[in-house]
């Protein structure tokens, strides 16, 4: 059992990382956007009235403004594409799952205990797995393979874990993180922050599950889902693992072993340095462009 410990009013490390990501992106972006909107207009106007040659005249005076405008347009584009793709994928997945799942009646009283009444569905598949999806009303999906093979205590552990994701609206947060990353793709430290968000949420959900039913059912459920079935025993599973998944799993097992959350992975200094450098460059371009816009306005008056 994970010791309760003193009650902290702080957010768990996953949500801390998520809100840090949101604040970092909107803070930085807000600053750049105020200047950027005027810059996009001015650059656009110059392009229309004078033609592309005008941007290179004046000793490259317009160059930072042009680059900033290009960056703003490009990143808004990538974020838009990402958002559209994620929303489409979410809608299709919901439709497909609706056709393939049925409500999980026998466990509805248990589900209700975790605030999941009517939100747990079962999908026909031999592999044992469970996940939470749905942006506005998150739902939990269990496979028939898991329901059939897992003892009741393990299913309770899985439901407790997933209910933590539902309560925190993690699918929606995942989508927001995806879109923010797609927009600020040139700041590599944010990607690291995002994986810390995912790992931190998993650890928090594990703590919620262990507090309800102890370590053993949770470890058992993890093992049941992870252990390769007999027909897959010939494949080296480790070869298919992505690094971040392996690190998250390692942290989850360590938390079960030690009873406390392992310290989050620090952002590598290299990423931090590169991101700061790029952010400073973009801000410098924005300030430079703003001064240019101001000068042009003064001249027009």
């Amino acid at each position, binding site marked *: *059992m994970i010791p309760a410990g003193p009650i902290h009013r702080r957010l768990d490390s996953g949500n801390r990382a998520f809100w840090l990501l949101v604040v970092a992106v909107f803070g930085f972006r807000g600053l750049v956007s105020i200047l950027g909107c005027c810059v996009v207009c001015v650059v656009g106007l110059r392009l229309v009235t004078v033609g592309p040659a005008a941007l290179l005249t004046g000793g490259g005076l317009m160059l930072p403004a042009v680059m900033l405008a290009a960056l703003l347009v490009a990143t808004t584009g990538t974020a838009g594409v990402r958002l559209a*793709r*994620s929303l*489409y*994928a*979410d809608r*299709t*997945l919901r439709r*497909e*799952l609706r056709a*393939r799942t049925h409500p999980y009646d026998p*466990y509805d009283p*248990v589900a209700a205990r975790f605030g999941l009444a009517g939100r747990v569905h079962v999908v*026909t*598949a*031999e*592999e044992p*797995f*469970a996940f*939470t*999806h749905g*942006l506005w009303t998150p739902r939990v999906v269990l*496979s028939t393979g898991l329901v059939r093979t897992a*003892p*009741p*205590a393990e*299913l*309770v552990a899985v439901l407790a874990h*997933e209910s933590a994701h539902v309560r925190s609206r993690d*699918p929606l947060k*995942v*989508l927001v993180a*995806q879109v923010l990353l797609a927009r600020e793709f040139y700041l590599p430290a944010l990607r690291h922050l995002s994986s810390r968000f995912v790992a931190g*949420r998993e650890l928090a959900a594990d703590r919620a599950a262990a507090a309800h039913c*102890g*370590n*053993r*059912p949770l*470890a*058992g459920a*993890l*093992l049941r*889902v*992870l*252990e390769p*079935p007999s*027909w897959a025993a*010939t494949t080296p*599973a*480790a070869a*298919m*693992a*992505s690094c971040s*998944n*392996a690190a998250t*799993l*390692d942290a989850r*097992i360590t938390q*079960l*072993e030690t009873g406390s959350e392992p310290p989050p992975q620090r952002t590598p200094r290299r990423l931090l340095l590169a991101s700061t450098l790029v952010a400073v460059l973009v801000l410098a371009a924005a300030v430079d462009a703003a001064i240019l816009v101001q000068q042009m306005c003064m001249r027009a008056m």
Partner: protein
Amino acid sequence: MAGLGPLETAAMEVLWRADEPLSVRQVLDRLNQDRCPLLAYTTVMTVLARLADKGALTRQPRGRGFAYRPTGSDPAALAVRSVLTEHGDAAIVRFVEQVGADPDALRRLRRLVDNSPGDSPETPP
């Protein structure tokens, strides 16, 4: 089954019935047992390669060619897997990523299951 043709379905059924990965030749022989006219080797090879591309099979080198085995254990699992693979962009939070446990992680989990004191794994809900 979602997105599979008749020959692909037949090949999948052969592989689901088998206990081990099969080579193209083995799949061909089993498909041709009750079939007239017989299928050509290259036809089956193409079908298996296409199934591997769709994520329904994985292949491993064996001799001069490949041996194939299904990634899922039955048609329903394959359908669900293809839905999840196809819409991997959607915001999903999995209980745990299925692929990717190294033997050491599994050993540590097994130790936790065996040694956790106090709580019985069979507590009814």
